[in-house]
């Protein structure tokens, strides 16, 4: 018994060390920009860099667009699959998992072949169209997370009966979807949204190969040319991700608290 407990503590300690040592080392290193003293100089430089602000703003905007398009695509799909076409569910699940199996580089090469400037739909010919293409790419990348989050949210409510109750009260499809179903899966959508945000903020391959000024390529650029700033950026990126995960937890708890107790 005692041995088993010691073993679990040891495993936990090793795990914590495995995660914390690199993190603390990065943090420590990021604070040594000024010789002989600890400071946040690297953070000041990074945060003051206009390219940081531009690329972070660019990625944030794209992340928000990705979330909106993702929700508009996934919510009605998951809803209809659950309500009317349950037989298609395995197929749709398979499709939504594909981005995990097909490497991003393959997807983006596919995009470049199909949408290049001499193709029938030359989306890479202008910056705005490329932004749109990049956003669609991000929607694809976030599909496994968004679909699963929304689908498990729908599983937690009685979609069929709520739909029928609303229908018998005279409601049409848009009313049912946006006034009855959406508010009840809001926390699931939010957790999907935060995951999407985290993915888009750190994404490199799509943005780099489509040559867009996103945060991922900026991270790479700084990492290749500077010493202390990449460490500061890594810590900032970690904080953003953790904030997203913390928000998922907060909203996840919100659902459980408001769920009927009967």
């Amino acid at each position, binding site marked *: 018994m005692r041995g088993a407990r010691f073993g679990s503590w040891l495993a936990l300690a090793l795990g914590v060390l495995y995660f914390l040592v690199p993190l603390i080392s990065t943090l420590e290193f990021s604070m040594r920009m000024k010789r002989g003293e600890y400071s946040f100089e690297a953070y000041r430089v990074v945060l003051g860099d206009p390219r940081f602000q531009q690329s972070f703003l660019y990625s944030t905007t794209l992340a928000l667009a990705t979330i909106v398009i993702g929700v508009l695509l996934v919510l009605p799909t998951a809803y209809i699959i659950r309500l009317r076409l349950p037989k298609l569910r395995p197929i749709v699940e398979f499709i939504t998992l594909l981005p995990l199996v097909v490497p991003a580089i393959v997807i983006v090469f596919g995009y470049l072949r199909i949408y290049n400037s001499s193709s029938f739909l030359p989306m890479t010919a202008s910056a705005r169209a490329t932004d749109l293409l990049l956003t669609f790419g991000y929607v694809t990348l976030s599909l496994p997370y968004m679909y699963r989050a929304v689908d498990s949210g729908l599983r937690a409510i009685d979609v069929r009966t709520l739909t029928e109750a609303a229908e*018998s009260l005279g409601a049409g499809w848009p009313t049912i979807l946006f006034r009855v179903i959406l508010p009840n899966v809001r926390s699931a959508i939010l957790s999907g949204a935060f995951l999407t945000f985290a993915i888009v903020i750190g994404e490199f391959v799509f943005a780099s190969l489509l040559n867009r000024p996103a945060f991922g390529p900026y991270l790479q650029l700084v990492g290749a040319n500077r010493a202390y700033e990449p460490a500061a950026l890594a810590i900032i990126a970690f904080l953003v991700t953790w904030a997203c995960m913390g928000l998922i937890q907060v909203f996840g708890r919100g659902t459980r608290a408001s*769920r009927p107790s009967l």
Partner: protein
Amino acid sequence: MAFLELENLSKSFGANVGVHQVTLAIERGEFVSFLGPSGCGKTTTLRMIAGFEQPSSGDIRIDGRDVTGLRPNQRNIGMVFQSYALFPNMTVAENVGFGLKVARAPATEISSRVEEMLQLIGLPQHGERYPYQLSGGQQQRVALARALAVRPTLLLLDEPLSALDAKIRISLREEIRRVQRQLGITTIYVTHDQEEALSMSDRIVVMNEGRIEQLGTPFEIYNYPRSRFVASFVGTLNTLATIVTDPASGRVEVDGQPLTVSGLNGAKPGDRLTFALRPEAISFRSPTPGINTLAGTLEEVSFLGSIVRMRVRFGENVLSLDTFNTPNEPPPSRGDHVTVGFAARDLRLLDNS
């Protein structure tokens, strides 16, 4: 012309027939129950009336208008579900007012109607609560108010009390009936609970295997079941397997003991016939001329409070009988030899279907 008419309504699910050629006419203001075991087609029929299922064939007319092809949101039918189906994100008042809001009624009308409905169901103080803050019985009352708020032409209730405990069930069924009478709304009530159907309905439709077995008032259904299924599903039923000895004088035999019955026209000596007998028609008797008596052994005694239910065995046959509890007379014990009696008119010949 009846208010709601179902004509040859059928529904198949692949090779399975869910509902088969149901024809039914319900008058305005009537309270009709669909009663039957699970899978008998009662809920499917209800869902076709509501518009959630499309019939494979047949017509549905409400007040002379054919609604068969209409979507559920075009039918103006109120529906109450077993699982309440209140919208968890809305307060009680928002739930009740949902239908009116969808219909774009003015805000003042919505709030006055919501108030009126909450008064009707006896929850006037609960408008600002959320469904999860209410008990099951309260949630179902809100669901009823929500269904009625839009002034539907027809109210459908799909096993609304099944998820509630026994005491609430009884008080709520009285309340549903009170509200229904007060508003005079034509109502269809689906249940597998015969007591609910018997106590609430103007008429009962007993369904089995997708067909209507019998349609009648609770009194008719209980006392004059037309088939073995109805007799056994509604109430407790004794069946007596008899052998005809003398058809002319109405004599049959149960486990070697003679009985006199009526309605043996066409039977031959040696025919095996089954009769139904309600527990309350049987009592302890000493052998008396003109009354059928059977001697047997008491196999089981259940004390149920106001009623004592007993089972008496005669060879292969077992009869259940109910007697009222009398405080100064303890019930007999298991194993006692007893004689029970019943009138010949209480025996109902069952068709063998």
